Every structure is written in structure tokens, then in C-alpha cells.
């Protein structure tokens, strides 16, 4: 096992043991619960399938900032509890540690989003088939990419602020980006968080796949930029 894989596995074990892995998966699975359960539990509130898709998108708009907030608090906590220092003393470059944590968080967020989208796809199968499976998949991928960008932003905040402040700052920043995508003057512009807006408006989108791909690309660029900033900050940080 390479050094990077060892560190990523260590980060995953820490997430598992601290229950944060379950929390990360949980926020994405909770987001899909209204879509999956309301028709059976409260059929009078169920509305149309496309309406429920909008609920789902709204719930994801909460899940993504929460996941990012967890990543911010985790990294900040690792820096302050001395575990980063212990690993750095074993000649592990700080950037390698950061990327290992990003891989761990990004992997969990991607799996969480995949599970969530699968449940949504099963629950809203007919509506999705009508609007195009490709559009739904592309929008879900765009949301996952937004999740990666949000995690990277969270890691960046985590290198600067204390855990609670880092989590709150990340939630505010990612939440603002989501709000801008959904309601801002830029509308459908390829914001990194536009995937959620595309998902919410799946029935009325003119070119959802192109917009989702554009949003995904921007999200990955934002993730890269946030990681570069986080690495620069981490290299200068006192451990």
C-alpha cells in the first residue's frame, strides 16, 4: 500500500470511528427521504413527481453545506489535536495529508450522493424517464461535483479557523453559493452549485445536460483552486 493510500485509509478509519462517515452518508440519505416516503406516509402532501424532485433538490441544498461543514471542522480539529503534527513528523508532506483527507471526504460524499440519487431515481422513476434519464444523471453528477467543491472549500476553511468557526464559515459560504445558483441574477449560469438548481427545475430546463456538465467542470475547478489555497496555507501553518 502506498503512503498516500495508507493516509487516505487512516482518514477513512477516523471518519468511521468518529461517526462522521455515517453523518456524511446520512445527510445525503436524509435528503432523499421526503421523496421516497411521503407518497406512502402522507399521500395527500405528495404532489407531483417533479414537485418532489424540487423538494429533493432543496434538501440537497442543505446536505451539501452540512457535509462541507463537517469536513471543515474535522480538518481544523486534526490540526489542533496534534495528529497532523504526528504524521508530519514521519516526513509526510503536508500537501499529501491534505489530499488524503480530500480523497476520504470526497469519496464518502460521492458515495452518499450516488446512494441518494439511486433512491431518488427509483422513487421518481416515471418522472425521470419522461424528462430524460441522462438529464437526471448529469444533474446528480453536477451535485456530486458541487459536493467535492464544497468539501475542498471546507478543508480550506479548516486550515485557517477553529473547528466551530470553520464549520459555520463553510456552511455560510457554500450556502450562499447555492442560494446564488438557485435565486441569484446569474440564474442558470454554470455556477459550481448550479447542479441543484438544474435538478430542481428538471422539467423546465432547456439544456440540462449541457448546463450540468458545465456546472460540474466549474465545480471541479473550484475544488482544485480551494485545495491549492488550503495547501499553501497548510505549508505555512504552525502545528
Amino acid at each position: 500500500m502506498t503512503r498516500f493510500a495508507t493516509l487516505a485509509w487512516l482518514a477513512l478509519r477516523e471518519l468511521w470511528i468518529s461517526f462522521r462517515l455515517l453523518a456524511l452518508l446520512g445527510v445525503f440519505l436524509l435528503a432523499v427521504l421526503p421523496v421516497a416516503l411521503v407518497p406512502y406516509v402522507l399521500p395527500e402532501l405528495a404532489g407531483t413527481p417533479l414537485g418532489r424532485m424540487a423538494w429533493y433538490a432543496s434538501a440537497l441544498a442543505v446536505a451539501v453545506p452540512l457535509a462541507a461543514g463537517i469536513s471543515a471542522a474535522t480538518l481544523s480539529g486534526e490540526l489542533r489535536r496534534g495528529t497532523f503534527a504526528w504524521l508530519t513528523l514521519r516526513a509526510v508532506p503536508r500537501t499529501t495529508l491534505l489530499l488524503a483527507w480530500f480523497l476520504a471526504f470526497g469519496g464518502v460524499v460521492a458515495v452518499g450522493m450516488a446512494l441518494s440519487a439511486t433512491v431518488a431515481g427509483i422513487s421518481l422513476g416515471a418522472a425521470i424517464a419522461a424528462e430524460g434519464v441522462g438529464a437526471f444523471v448529469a444533474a446528480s453528477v453536477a451535485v456530486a461535483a458541487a459536493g467535492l467543491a464544497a468539501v475542498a472549500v471546507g478543508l480550506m476553511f479548516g486550515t485557517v479557523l477553529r473547528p466551530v468557526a470553520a464549520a459555520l464559515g463553510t456552511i455560510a459560504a457554500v450556502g450562499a453559493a447555492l442560494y446564488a445558483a438557485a435565486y441569484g441574477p446569474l440564474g442558470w449560469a454554470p455556477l459550481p452549485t448550479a447542479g441543484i438548481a438544474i435538478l430542481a427545475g428538471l422539467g423546465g430546463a432547456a439544456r440540462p445536460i449541457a448546463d450540468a456538465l458545465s456546472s460540474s467542470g466549474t465545480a471541479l475547478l473550484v475544488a482544485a483552486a480551494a485545495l491549492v489555497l488550503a495547501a499553501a496555507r497548510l505549508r505555512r501553518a504552525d502545528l
Partner: protein
Amino acid sequence: MRPAAVVVRRLRRSWHGQRLLDGVDLEVPVGARLLLVSRPEASGSLLLRVLAGLVRPASGSVRLAGLAHGNESAAGWARRVAFLAAEPGIYPWLTPAEALDLAARLAGYDRRERRPRIEAAIEVFRLQADVDRPISRGGAAVAQKTALAAALLTDPEVVLLDEPLRSVLPDERARLLRLPGQRRTVLLASRLPASEAGIVTQVALLRDGRLAVHASAADLEQNGLALSFQGIEALADLQLAGLPAASSG
């Protein structure tokens, strides 16, 4: 004269607005075991963290075991320099065996090299009873012993210890702190100098961010001074007054 294992030149660094290192110059010869006391107390810890590469100095230079500072990815760094903080920083859910395996793995040892080193460390540090249960269940003593075992796993030339093994019984603590042996250079920051008797061969005092005295432990005895903060400070005052107190380290 023995070559220097640790060379510090004009080191400066503030912490939370306080200048804790204000132009520190220090040379520690190979094989010396130096007790570092300081006022403010945080100065000693900060100096060790700078030496370990965890904290960046505002200015000045550091060389340890012939290595210049600043190249954190240097392959030889982890094998030649070890640092142990008061808080070990090991994941408490790891077992001592896992922590040692991780340390050996990250140091670049292959499977054949890892096993004998880990087995030897477990025996020397008497971790057999706790080796396969999480460090958190063994308490602070197991965590600190595991951290020191991990630090010494690579047979480093310079060992930096910041208030080490405070949770370990005194006799066991003294035995473990002597482990680095004659060949290794040890810098030990302590708030309880008397507890380091028999472990250290040199003493140094950082006062107001500067090196006030660096002498052999025997100089304290020759001047009728105890191995205590007051004793080391009195030795520094004697040197400052120009009295023939000590021959520097």
C-alpha cells in the same frame, strides 16, 4: 571536541504576541543530553517545535544531524530526527501495534524491516499487555510510551522531547528516557528539572527568549547548585557576573 548535532543561529519567533525566542544561539554536541528549562515556560516547548519543523521561525537558521531545515519531504529527516510532544498526537483508536506499524510504514521500511523493529520496540517499552487494544483503553501512560517507541523506531540521531512520559511511573520513565543512549543527542524540555537527574548531561536556560546559560550538569554540582530551575538560574547569574562558574557545554 565533538561535532554539533544541533546548531541554532539567531532564532526568533513570537507566539500570541509574545517574543518567546529572541535571537537564540545554541550548539549541542553529538551525544549530549541537554535539559532545557525556560522562562516563560513556553519558550522551551516552542524551541523544540521549531527544531522539529512544526513551527516556522520568524528568522534564524537550524541544522539538525547535519540536515538543514525546511525540506519537510527529505527522505532522511524522519529517520534522523524524532520529536515527542507532551500530547502524543496518535489516534487513540489505534493499538500500539498499529501505531508502530504506521510509523514504520511511513518511515519507508518494508515488511521485513518493520517486523523486527516493532517487536523490539514492544519488548523494550513493555507494551506487550496493551499491544492489541486501542491506546485509549491503556490510558495516558500507554499513549506516551507508544509515542516514544514510535519516535525511536527509526533509530534517530537527534531526539527532541517536550515534557515526555509524565504519566509513566518515575523509575520506568527514567529507564525509558535513558534509552536513546550515548550515541544519540537528546534535547529535553522540562518544567520539573529535578525529575531529570541522572538523565541529562547538560543544562540550558532560556530567559526572556535568549539563551542565558548552557553548561554541563556537573557545573551545577561544582557550584553547589541543585538541578532545579533556581539552581540553573543561579548558574546563569554567576556566569553573567563573570564568576568562574561553568565551562560551557
